[in-house]
């Protein structure tokens, strides 16, 4: 297994280099640059020259890129042009927040989606199945910012409730942290649950039609055993694939929810970075997101081998 993990990490390197090169090129192509962003209307040629020298932007492009990559390999993602602060610690502390939100949202979506998916599979083509499928479709078709704004308004008008302001770390002040994170997590979780519900239902029905289910029943197994021991485990693979993809896409995708609930996550950092053309911030954070995304894929692949003995490490994606 270790060889497999090392091989997967090796394939990570070309991807990361590919991403970092493409970000660098795109950042040059986009109109606007960090200096005019910082100076705003005060910009004049003299000020611009000073600032560009201070930020090292007067060096030729390839030199800028190579020096950045040189440090990045050593873990030093450089400093933000705007705030002059070290980027890597900033990414880590923000990643913890986005990761916590993602995990909470994922768990909430599993709690909602998997039982409902099972129920709608068992009670196939009944009204309950219809209702559950409708809820699932609703989850898939509601834009998250509409859902978020609606819930904020509803809670604050009707229940006079608004999550406490000012983010607190999970370990620093757990009570306040959970109060802040629970609402956005529920909203993200509800939206994620739509597709998981549909996937659970279809893959469970697929498994229930297999021959070995008949054998198990012929052995005298109760429906509970048939479902929870055998059917669910066999249905797990496509569900885990979907969850892996969802968690991956959430890492950058929570930017809308983070913005509405003003949670200092990674998505928002990238968005501000792009707006301010703060190249090291954008480069560092997207590379980190890509790295975590591939790590999650590796974990999902490893989970496969634990669930299904037929899948061995030589089988690729």
């Amino acid at each position, binding site marked *: 297994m270790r060889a497999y993990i090392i091989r997967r990490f090796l*394939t990570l390197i*070309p*991807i990361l280099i*590919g*991403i970092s090169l*493409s970000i660098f090129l*795109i950042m040059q*192509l*986009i*109109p606007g640059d960090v200096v005019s962003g910082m100076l705003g209307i005060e910009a004049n040629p003299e000020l611009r020259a000073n600032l560009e020298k201070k930020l090292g932007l007067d060096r030729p492009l390839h030199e800028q890129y190579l020096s950045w990559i040189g440090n990045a390999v050593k873990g030093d993602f450089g400093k933000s042009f705007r705030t002059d602060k070290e980027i890597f610690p900033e990414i880590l502390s923000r990643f913890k927040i986005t990761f916590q939100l993602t995990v909470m949202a994922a768990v909430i979506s599993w709690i909602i989606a998997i039982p409902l998916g099972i129920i709608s599979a068992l009670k*196939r083509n009944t009204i309950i199945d219809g209702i559950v*499928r409708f809820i699932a*479709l*609703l989850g*898939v*078709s*509601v*834009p*998250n*910012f*509409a859902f978020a*704004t*609606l819930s904020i*308004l509803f809670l604050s*008008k009707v229940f006079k409730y608004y999550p406490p302001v000012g983010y607190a770390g999970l370990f620093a002040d757990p009570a306040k942290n959970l109060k802040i994170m629970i609402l956005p997590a529920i909203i993200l979780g509800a939206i994620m649950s739509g597709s998981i519900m549909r996937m659970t*239902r*279809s893959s469970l*029905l*697929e498994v229930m039609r297999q021959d070995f289910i008949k054998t198990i029943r012929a052995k005298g197994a109760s429906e509970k055993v048939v479902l929870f021991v055998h059917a669910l485990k066999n249905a797990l693979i496509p569900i885990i694939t979907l969850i892996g993809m969802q968690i*991956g*896409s959430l*890492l*950058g*995708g929570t*930017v*809308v929810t983070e913005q509405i609930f003003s949670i200092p996550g990674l*998505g928002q950092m*990238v*968005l501000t970075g*792009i707006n301010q053309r703060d190249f090291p911030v954008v480069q560092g954070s*997207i590379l980190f*997101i*890509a790295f975590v*995304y*591939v790590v999650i894929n590796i974990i999902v692949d490893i989970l496969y081998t634990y669930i299904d003995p037929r899948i061995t490490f030589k089988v690729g*994606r």
Partner: protein
Amino acid sequence: MDWFKTLIKEIAKVIKGLLKDKVGRIGLIGVLIVIVLALGAPMIATHDVTEMFAKSKLKPPSGDFLFGTDDFGRDVFSRIIFGARVSLKVGIISVGISATSGFILGILAGYYEGKTDGIIMGIMDVLFAFPSILLALFIVSVLGPNLTNTMIAIGIVSTPVFTRTVRASVISVKSMEYITSAKSIGLSSIRIILKHVAPNILAPFTVQATLALSSAILTEASLSFLGLGIQPPNPSWGSMLSDSRKYMELAPWLAIAPSAFIIGTILSFNLLGDSLRDVLDPKFKL
């Protein structure tokens, strides 16, 4: 010309199958309504989409303004109707882009494996690793913010999902006997792909297409929320919804109308996708 006739016959059969299934019926009707709205927009709309009635700003739904007016005093009903045109166009063209490129790349990667598979999937990994909203943001800010660029951006963003779906089905279809038998009688690989592999991955492909249509509309809405979607004053459901957020309390009809239509359209596409999957692939009859 016979393949054309078979195609028509095939489509007729699919539609008949859809109508039989309750879910399919609802989906089909929903989609048809949206198409009719989009095509017949000029006839249906009651006002000019950009006309500003300064004295009737933020008015609730009434006789002459069926869905009320927005903060510029423009008629929401007409904007919704024309919005159908935009959202449908965004959906269809962006899915067109991602479906075709995903189809070709997926088949190449799935069928040829080895180096081609490695390279194509490597690029797809790079695109996958980029969070979709941010990738779209990049493309739109490089090409400039207008509707066509939004469509291209959404198209590129959803290509990897298509490629992966197509590749997965090609690999599973490839291992089946009839492909090896086709190879054994010396068919050239292109013919095998077109004649045998392609038709058989149609079912998961069409399902993926309907899902991509709904996510395209959602992505357009999120892009508008981040201020990068369609250019004012032309309306799209996404931009109307994101603009309405400020007035959700003062003028809720501004948010209700677009969200209802967005949810309705996506619901119909997904229902259509579900029953299409059953019709196209009897094995899936659940």
